């Protein structure tokens, strides 16, 4: 019978005395757990290898043919893929193709003899993830609303979003086929913001799904958007609680955003007061600050900070330098969309017999500081 080792993470390893700058850097990204037997090597919070000390194996050269690691639970038929590396001094490491799973136990076999079992500790982070925001934040949304953004406090497990997100009617019934199913979900680079489209085939007029099932939202009806609490983050922790957003479907938005109707409150020359911009309608929460830049009369990009206001209906520009007398320009990228996916150039589903289409890269609005 093989010897069994159950090894917790050695927290003290993080407090080791730094020998050099290189050592410090290394310890920041990688730590090792080792207590005379088998241990994990850690990198960025993930167990990336098992370290097997020399006394448990008899030589490296044939190790990759005689070393085997398997999950303790279930009855795996396929050997775990990984690389056996000579770690020096007779020690070897087994580096799996993907990091070991949190909370799982692994048994290591050498020449078909069990030499130990290790358990990856559960996540040490105490806090559980939360839904921190859903955009649009308004409680009345156009009936041809195109998308929701879901913002989380931590990166969530991918590939299962529509198992956890649902739209309910006023009888608390889940509405089927409301969202667009995408095999590769639309996450931002941090893994904390998810974009979910309402099925565009149902929104676009005269497409078969629109004819068969109608628009996903119907004017004047009440809805609840739900994110179920069983959704786990990448560390296996489920949401602290389910999330609900109640809203009502309003009138169809069939106008493109129009800069001519944006209202500006101008600061005085010489001040560093903010420029307040109220848009003609609520706009996309993330596209809005990315789409707008301020340009000086000389064509220079004006440094400063753009903040999106309540309900994505306004913007505040805080300059880093005092305003000078003269003409400034607000340049807005034509890709900026409203809540129904209409952008500055065209409507979401343009009626070619009626609606115009433009092909500008950006639109501008001039103003004079006095």
């Amino acid at each position, binding site marked *: 019978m093989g010897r069994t080792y159950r090894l917790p993470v050695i927290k003290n390893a993080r407090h080791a005395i730094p020998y050099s700058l290189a050592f410090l850097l290394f310890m920041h990204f990688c730590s090792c757990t080792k207590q005379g037997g088998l241990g994990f090597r850690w990198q960025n919070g993930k167990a990336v290898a098992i370290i097997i000390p020399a006394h448990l194996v008899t030589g490296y050269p044939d190790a990759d043919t005689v070393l085997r690691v398997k999950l303790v639970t279930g009855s795996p038929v396929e050997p775990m893929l990984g690389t056996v590396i000579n770690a020096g001094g007779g020690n070897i490491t087994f580096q799996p193709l*993907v990091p070991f799973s949190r909370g799982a136990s692994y048994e290591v076999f050498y020449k078909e003899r069990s030499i130990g079992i290790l358990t990856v500790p559960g996540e040490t982070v105490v806090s559980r993830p939360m839904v921190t925001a859903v955009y649009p934040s308004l409680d009345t949304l156009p009936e041809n609303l195109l998308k929701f953004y879901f913002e989380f406090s931590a990166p969530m497990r*991918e590939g299962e979003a529509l198992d956890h997100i649902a739209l309910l009617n006023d009888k608390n019934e889940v509405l089927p086929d409301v969202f667009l199913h995408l095999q590769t979900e639309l996450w*931002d680079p941090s*893994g904390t913001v998810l974009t979910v489209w309402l099925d565009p085939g149902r929104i676009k007029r005269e*497409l*078969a*799904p629109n004819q068969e099932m109608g628009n996903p939202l119907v004017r004047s009806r009440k809805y609840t958007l739900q994110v179920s609490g069983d959704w786990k983050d990448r560390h296996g922790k489920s949401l602290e609680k389910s999330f609900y957003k109640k809203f009502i479907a309003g009138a169809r938005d069939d106008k493109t955003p129009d800069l001519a109707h944006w209202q500006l409150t101008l600061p005085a020359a010489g001040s560093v007061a903010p420029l307040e911009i109220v848009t003609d309608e609520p706009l996309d929460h993330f596209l809005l600050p990315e789409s707008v830049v301020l340009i000086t009369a000389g064509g220079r*990009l004006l440094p400063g900070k753009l903040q999106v206001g309540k309900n994505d209906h306004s913007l505040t520009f805080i300059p880093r330098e005092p305003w000078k007398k003269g003409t400034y320009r607000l340049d807005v990228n034509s890709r900026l*969309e409203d809540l129904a996916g209409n952008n500055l150039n065209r409507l979401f589903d343009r009626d*070619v017999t009626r609606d115009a289409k433009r092909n500008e890269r950006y639109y501008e609005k001039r103003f004079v500081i006095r």
Partner: protein
Amino acid sequence: MKKSLLFAAAGLAGVFLFAGINRTEVSPNGFVTGTPEIRSVSALTFGPDGILFVGDSKSAAVFAIDTKDTKRTDKPQPTDIRAFDQKLADALGTTKENVTILDMVVNPISKKIYFAVQTADGSPALLKLEGDKLQAVPMNDVRFSSVALNNVAAEDAKDARGRSLRVSTISDIGYADGKLLVSGLSNKEFSSSFRSIPFPFTGKQDDASLEMYHASHGRFETTSPIRTFTTGELNGKKYLIASYTCTPLVVFPLDELTAGAHIKGRTVAEMGNGNTPVDMVRLSGGGNSFLVLANDRRPVAKVNYKNIEQFEGTLTERVAGTAGVTFAVLPLEKVVQLDKLDDSRAIVLQKRATGELDLWTSNGQNL
């Protein structure tokens, strides 16, 4: 841990942290030898001579990896593996709930099957089948090159105001006529991003970024994103056959895919509610060619190529349900991945009623 070993490891960590990519040799066609730093595996396709293209959404880049898997197999044996998801989970040392298969492709030369996989903690992996054994696709000291999809705009007034659509997810990649074709989705804008990038990658930004429209019933026009595509010949001319996220099936002449073009595709069919294919392949049988469309939420559909060729117009009339060219709906549901094995057969990854994922090979009649 011994002090000397710590120093060695710290040094190694430094190499990985600050070098990013371990390059040792750069060839004239942009290939280097080293370890590509792939952060995600969204889409796969094979190019010439065993080159595997890996679409990496998180890096907004496509890697071209020389697999050296170029031993020709003319008569591949069928592959049939039940509970393939469990086998995959075993190989990755985790449970099958923790594994998502993002793409599957067959190497057209060796006929070996490659898989792009992601685990619950976000770790990507590339695997292939050798017989009935799973293996990691080697990534150390391989020849590779890469192309970035989002050109970082300089922070000046000219670039800042007209910044183009940024791809957050690669929805599909393909290779035809010396060009890598990439369809991308943005997590912000509902717009079409399609690029045609000459391969080998030149390092210059001469790829064609295209705006692709389609019309529904001649009246409503849209720039909806492309979800999946394939290339093929229609009436002797090469076409891109694309499925949009809002269900139309659209064809574009390949020779019109030039830089900066705004192209309107010809809508040849509407797929019906929720029917956005995950994969499309061309198979032959009984003297005919078929476009086979897999969908993980609807049954597999099949279209005779002749019908697409003969459908000269674009959809101009409102028709209930599927419209345009005629589809045959096959009794195959929940096909999550599909790729061509040879002229008449395909490799199928299908979710069974038991919840298991089976990998099987069609026999020329059942698909």
